[in-house]
C-alpha cells in the first residue's frame, strides 16, 4: 500500500515542468466576460475578447487616442479627405469599405454587414448597455436610448407599443414601429456603393472615437451568420423582437462572428477561460501567437504563483501588490511596466441634498449628532473636507505610487487637461478655518456626525474613507465621521436612492474624449448628477451645463479647450468634489512576451501585437 503510494507520488512529481510553449500565450486575469457579443458588452473583460475577435471601421494609431488608422474602412473620414460632409446642419461620415475581407465563417465582408451591425446595436440597445453612445452621437445628445427615440418619433411610449411578449399592442403601434425603422434608423446608416454613410444630426466631437476599434459597440459582425443563428433578420417588420433581450439570446453571445485576427475556440464559462486561435486568413496577415488562453483566476496568490512558475505569460497585479511584481522582476521572472495613463479617474463627490430617508446622517439635524440633508450645499463644508484628503500620502502608501494627483476629474493627456490648475491640497489648518465658517459657525460649535460608505472589497475606497474620517475627526473632537463598509447591493441601493452623503467613485472612459468625463461628473444631466442631489443640479444648470454642451458640439479644438478649462475652474472654485487620483497602469508580463505597448482606449490585451520568444 505504502509502496504504491510512493510510486504514484513519484510519477506525479516527475511529470512536472512542461516547457513554456511559444505558440501559446496564457493571460491570467480577474473576472470573466459577460458576453462575447458587442450587443451586451460593456465591461473590459468582454471588450478584451471582442476586440480580438472583431474588427471595427477604424483603429487608433499606436498609443495615440486622437490619431486614427484605417481598418475595415480603407480611409479615416475627415473634412480634408472629403469623407466628412456637412448637409443642412447634418454631418455625414463616409467609410469606404475594404474589399476581400473574410469573416471567420468564410463569408466575405460587405458594406451591408457594417450597416447591419450598427442598426442591430441601435435597435437592440439592451438596458444599461453601451449603445447610448452611438445614439447620443447620431442624435446630437437628443436621445440616449432607442426607446426614447421611438417615443419621440411615435408619440407613444415604447412600453405602450410592445407588450411583454414582444408583440405590438395594436396595428397602429406596429405601423409606427415599422416606419420608425424605415424613416428614422435605416436612413442614418446607409450603404452607398462601396461605402457606408453615417448621418449625424450635428457635429459630435467624439464620433470617430466611438466607432473606433477597441470599442466593442462598434464591432462589425457577420450578418449572414447572425441571421442563420436566429438574430435580427435585417427587416423593418419585427425588429422589436430583438430589442432588449437577455445576453444569451443574441447570436454571438458565445459564438465568434467577426473578422478579427483571432477566432473563438471555446468560451468555457465554468472554467472562466476563453480560448482563442489565430485566424490564418486575417486580412492584415496572421498573428504571431497561435493559441491564446484568457483565464480568470480570481485568487491573487494563485495567480501570482502560476505566473511565477511560468505557467502564464501575463498576469493581473493590483497596484497594492506592486512590490510583489517588482520582486519577481528582480528575479528575472517578470517585466514590469508602470506609470502609463489608463483613462480613468477616481474621485469623491458630495451630495448637496441627501434624499429623505437616508440612514447615514445621524440625527438628520445639525445638533452634533448628525447633519442636515443640505449639509454639503455649503461650500465651506466641501472645501474643508477637500483639505482633509492627504493625496500624496495616499498615492505613495496605498497605491504604491501607481496614481497621480490631478486638478479635476479629467485625466492627464485629455483635451482640456491643464496642469496649471491647482492640485488638491492637504491642509488641516485651512480645513479648520473652512469648518469655522461653515453654516455660520454652527458646524464648528455643535459638531456633526455622518457616515462615509464604501463598498467592501475595495481597499482604496475604504482607505480614503478612513483617511477622511481620521483627519476630519482630528480637527475637532465634535466632528464624527464614521467609515462604513457595506456590501455592494446595499451600496448600490443607497447610491440610486441618493442616500449617500458623499460617494467615492471612479469612471473608466468609454471613449477617449473629455466629454465623457466632464459631463459625467459635472453636468446636471451627467451620470453622477443624480447622486449629487437636486441642489447640485440647479447649480450645474446655472453655471456649467451650457459650456459642456457647447464643448461637445464645437469642432474647433481650441474652442473646446477653452470651454473645458472654464468648467474645470468652476469645479475647483466650488469644490464640486475631490479628485482623489488618476490611476496609472501596471503591466506584468513574462520576459518572453514582446510587442506590448500601453494604449488607454484598449480593454486588456490585443494579442495581434504580441509575440513570444522561446
Amino acid at each position: 500500500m505504502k509502496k504504491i503510494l510512493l510510486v504514484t507520488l513519484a510519477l506525479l512529481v516527475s511529470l512536472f515542468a512542461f516547457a513554456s510553449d511559444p505558440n501559446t500565450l496564457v493571460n491570467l486575469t480577474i473576472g470573466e466576460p459577460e458576453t462575447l457579443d458587442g450587443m451586451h458588452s460593456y465591461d473590459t473583460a468582454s471588450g478584451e475578447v471582442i476586440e480580438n475577435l472583431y474588427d471595427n471601421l477604424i483603429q487608433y494609431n499606436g498609443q495615440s487616442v486622437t490619431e486614427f488608422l484605417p481598418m475595415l474602412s480603407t480611409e479615416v473620414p475627415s473634412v480634408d479627405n472629403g469623407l466628412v460632409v456637412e448637409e443642412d446642419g447634418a454631418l455625414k461620415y463616409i467609410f469606404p469599405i475594404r474589399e476581400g475581407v473574410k469573416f471567420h465563417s468564410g463569408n466575405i465582408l460587405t458594406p451591408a454587414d457594417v450597416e447591419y451591425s450598427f442598426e442591430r446595436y441601435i435597435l437592440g440597445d439592451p438596458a444599461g448597455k453601451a449603445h447610448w453612445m452611438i445614439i447620443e452621437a447620431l442624435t446630437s445628445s437628443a436621445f440616449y436610448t432607442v426607446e426614447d427615440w421611438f417615443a419621440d418619433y411615435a408619440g407613444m411610449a415604447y412600453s405602450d407599443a410592445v407588450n411583454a411578449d414582444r408583440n405590438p399592442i395594436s396595428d397602429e403601434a406596429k405601423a409606427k414601429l415599422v416606419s420608425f425603422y424605415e424613416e428614422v434608423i435605416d436612413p442614418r446608416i446607409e450603404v452607398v456603393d462601396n461605402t457606408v454613410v453615417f448621418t449625424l444630426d450635428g457635429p459630435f466631437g467624439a464620433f470617430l472615437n466611438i466607432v473606433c476599434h477597441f470599442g466593442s459597440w462598434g464591432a462589425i459582425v457577420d450578418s449572414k451568420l447572425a441571421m442563420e443563428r436566429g438574430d435580427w433578420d435585417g427587416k423593418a417588420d419585427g425588429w422589436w423582437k430583438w430589442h432588449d433581450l437577455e445576453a444569451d439570446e443574441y447570436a454571438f453571445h458565445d459564438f465568434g462572428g467577426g473578422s478579427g485576427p483571432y477566432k473563438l475556440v471555446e468560451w468555457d464559462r465554468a472554467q472562466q477561460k476563453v480560448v482563442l486561435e489565430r485566424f490564418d486568413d486575417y486580412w492584415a496577415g496572421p498573428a504571431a501567437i497561435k493559441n491564446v488562453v484568457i483565464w480568470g483566476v480570481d485568487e491573487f496568490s494563485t495567480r501570482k504563483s502560476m505566473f511565477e512558475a511560468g505557467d502564464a505569460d501575463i498576469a493581473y497585479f493590483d497596484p497594492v501588490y506592486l512590490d510583489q511584481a517588482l520582486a519577481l522582476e528582480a528575479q528575472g521572472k517578470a517585466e514590469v511596466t508602470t506609470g502609463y495613463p489608463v483613462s480613468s479617474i477616481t474621485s469623491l463627490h458630495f451630495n448637496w441634498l441627501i434624499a429623505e430617508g437616508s440612514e447615514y446622517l445621524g440625527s438628520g439635524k445639525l445638533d452634533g449628532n448628525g447633519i442636515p440633508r443640505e449639509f454639503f450645499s455649503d461650500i465651506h463644508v466641501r472645501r474643508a473636507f477637500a483639505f482633509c484628503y492627504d493625496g500624496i500620502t495616499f498615492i505613495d502608501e496605498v497605491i504604491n505610487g501607481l496614481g497621480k494627483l490631478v486638478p479635476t476629474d479629467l485625466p492627464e493627456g485629455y483635451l482640456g487637461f491643464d496642469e496649471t490648475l491647482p492640485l488638491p491640497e492637504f491642509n488641516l489648518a485651512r480645513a479648520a478655518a473652512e469648518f469655522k465658517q461653515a453654516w455660520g459657525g454652527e458646524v464648528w460649535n455643535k459638531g456633526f456626525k455622518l457616515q462615509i460608505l464604501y463598498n467592501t472589497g475595495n481597499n482604496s475606497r475604504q482607505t480614503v474613507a478612513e483617511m477622511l474620517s481620521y483627519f476630519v475627526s482630528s480637527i475637532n473632537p465634535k466632528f464624527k465621521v464614521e467609515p462604513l463598509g457595506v456590501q455592494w447591493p446595499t451600496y448600490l441601493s443607497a447610491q440610486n436612492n441618493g442616500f449617500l452623503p458623499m460617494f467615492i467613485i471612479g469612471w473608466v472612459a468609454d471613449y477617449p474624449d473629455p466629454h465623457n468625463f466632464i459631463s459625467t461628473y459635472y453636468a446636471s444631466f451627467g451620470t453622477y448628477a443624480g447622486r449629487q442631489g437636486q441642489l447640485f443640479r440647479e447649480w450645474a444648470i446655472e453655471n456649467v451645463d451650457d459650456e459642456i454642451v457647447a464643448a461637445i458640439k464645437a469642432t474647433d479644438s481650441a474652442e473646446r479647450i477653452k470651454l473645458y478649462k472654464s468648467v474645470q475652474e468652476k469645479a475647483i472654485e466650488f469644490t464640486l468634489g475631490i479628485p482623489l487620483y488618476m490611476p496609472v497602469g501596471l503591466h506584468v508580463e513574462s520576459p518572453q512576451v514582446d510587442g506590448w505597448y500601453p494604449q488607454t482606449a484598449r480593454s486588456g490585451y490585443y494579442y495581434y501585437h504580441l509575440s513570444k520568444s522561446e
Partner: protein
Amino acid sequence: MAVKRKSEFRKIMKKYWKNGTAVLGTCLLVFFIIVAVFAPQIAGVNEMGNNYQIPRVSWSSKPIAPTSEHPFGVIGGRDIFYGVVWGTRTAFRLGLIITGFSALIGVAIGSISAYFGGWVDEILMRIVDIFLSIPFLVAAMVMTTILGKGLDKVIIALIIFGWMSTARLIRGNILQAREEQYVLAAKALGQKDWKIIMKHILPNTIFPVVVQMSMRIGSYVITAAGLSFLGVGAEPGYADWGTILSYSRNWMTMLNESWFAIVFPGTAMVLFVLAWNLVGDALRDIFDPRMRS
C-alpha cells in the same frame, strides 16, 4: 441525596482533572479568558472610537515586520497584536452567543417536537429538514446582505441556520427518555406536560447538548473566518482573527515578509478551537454513559 450528588460531582471533577488533554484544554481556556478580560490593559484601547475596531497605524496595507511598538507586526495598516488580543473577546462573543442561542432554539423546538409528537413533530421536523437543505453559505451570504455587514449580522445568520442539529439531538434523546420509568411515573401522577419536560426530561437529556455546544464554539470561530474570506464576515479592520488572516491572504506567497500575519492570529485560532474541543471531548468521555467502562 445532596451529599451523594456532591460526591458524584467531586468524582467527576476528579476524573476530569486526571485527563491530560482536558487539563490542557482548560488551561488554554483560562488563558484566553484572562486575555479577553484584560484586553484593554494588555493591548490598550482605540482612542478614535470603537475598541473592536483595530486602530489604523499605517495607510499602507503592506505587512510590516514586528517591532517593539507592534510586537506582532502590522498588516492591512492594522496592529496585529491589538487585533489578536481584542479578537479573543470577539471569539468568545461569537462562539458563546451563537451556540447559546442556537442551543436554546434547538432545545425548545426539539423538546416540543419530541414531547407532543404527532403532527407537531411532523411539521417541526419538516422545517428542520428544510433548513438543513439550504446550503449554509448561501443562507449566510444572503442573510448578511439583507441585514448588512458586520459581525453581529454574521452571528444572527449563524444562529438562524445553526439550531437544527441541536433540535434533532434533543428530540432523539427525549424520545428515548420518554419511555423511561420516571417519566411514565410522572405522567401517571398527572403532572403537566411542560412540567415533565422541564423537570424530568431536560435535565437528563441536556448533557449531550452541552458537549455538542462546547465543541461547536470553536468551529463557529472558523466558520466566521471563512465568511470573512468570502467577504461577508466582520467589517474590515474589526478585531477578529479571521479578519486578520484574510488580510494576509494576498501576501501568502511572500511568507518571509508576512509570516507574522498568519502565525499569530492562526495560532490563537488553533489554540482556541483546540481548547474547546479538548474540553468537549473530555466532557463527552465523562458524561456519555456508553463511553464509561
